[in-house]
């Protein structure tokens, strides 16, 4: 029996919910890949905890999307039955884990943005969005703290850890432009607008990187396309693993 992929006729709000949910799901899945492979048992738990926070956020957003779409779909349909081109997550978040430094730098770059973003969204006139933001902000605040502390220690650690952290920063920097893409004009007043958060993001990073003795890369060519479904070569492989089971055994339950 074949599973058919679904196509969502997205209103601006639905598209918004799905892309923010995709961000959380894809990064959460990436963190789950550390299970059994983390450098310390303590960090194994920390990575899994953060991953579960993110998957929880994805569920809340997909759930609200299902409610707003009103087509009888569930959170699972959005996660498991959309094709790669229908995913609107940031390219930054689908980048491979690399070494531990790359994982932590990716977490820092995203958390330094999404934490103030959730805080701004807490004042949304949409009560459900405001509630999701309030819950998520507590989680992202911890992710930011955890990633910051590790980046500081890696940057200001040994020559090897410094080199790896700086290399991760240079590698991922071109993916940070996409964080600040403006939202659809139809959503003005309803959701926070990313361009207004750039200054706060840079300030957080400057503080952490200075303590880490790392150099903030200069803004050059910025990658984009994730929001429109034009992904790097990595997302397809990630989705193959993420979606394999429900697509191979439709309706499978525990």
């Amino acid at each position: 029996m074949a599973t058919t992929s679904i196509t969502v006729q997205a209103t601006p709000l639905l598209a918004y919910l799905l892309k923010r949910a995709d961000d959380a799901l894809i990064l959460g899945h990436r963190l789950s890949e550390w299970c059994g492979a983390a450098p310390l048992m303590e960090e194994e738990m920390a990575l899994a905890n953060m991953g579960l926070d993110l998957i929880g956020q994805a569920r809340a957003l997909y759930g609200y999307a299902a409610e707003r779409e009103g087509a009888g779909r569930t959170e699972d349909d959005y996660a498991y039955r959309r094709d790669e081109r229908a995913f609107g997550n940031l390219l930054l978040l689908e980048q491979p884990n690399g070494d531990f430094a790359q994982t932590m730098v990716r977490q820092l770059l995203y958390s330094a943005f999404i934490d103030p973003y959730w805080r701004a969204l807490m004042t949304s006139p949409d009560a459900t969005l405001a509630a999701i933001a309030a819950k998520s902000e507590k989680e992202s605040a911890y992710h930011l703290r955890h990633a910051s502390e590790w980046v500081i220690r890696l940057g200001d650690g040994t020559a090897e850890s410094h080199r790896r952290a700086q290399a991760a920063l240079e590698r991922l920097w071109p993916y940070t432009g996409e964080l600040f893409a403006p939202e659809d004009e139809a959503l003005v007043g309803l959701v926070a607008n990313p361009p207004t958060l750039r200054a706060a993001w840079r300030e957080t990073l400057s503080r952490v990187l200075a303590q880490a003795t790392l150099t903030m890369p200069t803004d050059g060519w910025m990658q984009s396309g994730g929001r429109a479904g034009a992904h790097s070569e990595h997302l397809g492989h990630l989705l193959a693993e993420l979606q394999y089971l429900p697509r191979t055994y439709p309706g499978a339950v525990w």
Partner: protein
Amino acid sequence: MAEPATPLWEVFIRSRNGLAHRHAGSLHAPDATLALQAARDLFTRRGEGLSLWVVPSSAITASDPADQGMMFEPTGSKIYRHPTFYEIPDEVGHM
């Protein structure tokens, strides 16, 4: 695997206001800040706590197991130290 040089920390959790911190276990972490974060991630995943302490295991002075006889056995025969020889009036209620 933790490298041998990674220090060991003892974790204490206070589960409710008004209660004392109780020993919950130990973990490895390179410094106090990361030890506190690891304690949060390892020991408070199910809402166990409102407050955490981490203490370097090396800061704890422990009694020697070989001294058990000298340290603890002499109290075994002093049953009069247990407050069980009194009739507690009903009005006192739960003690």
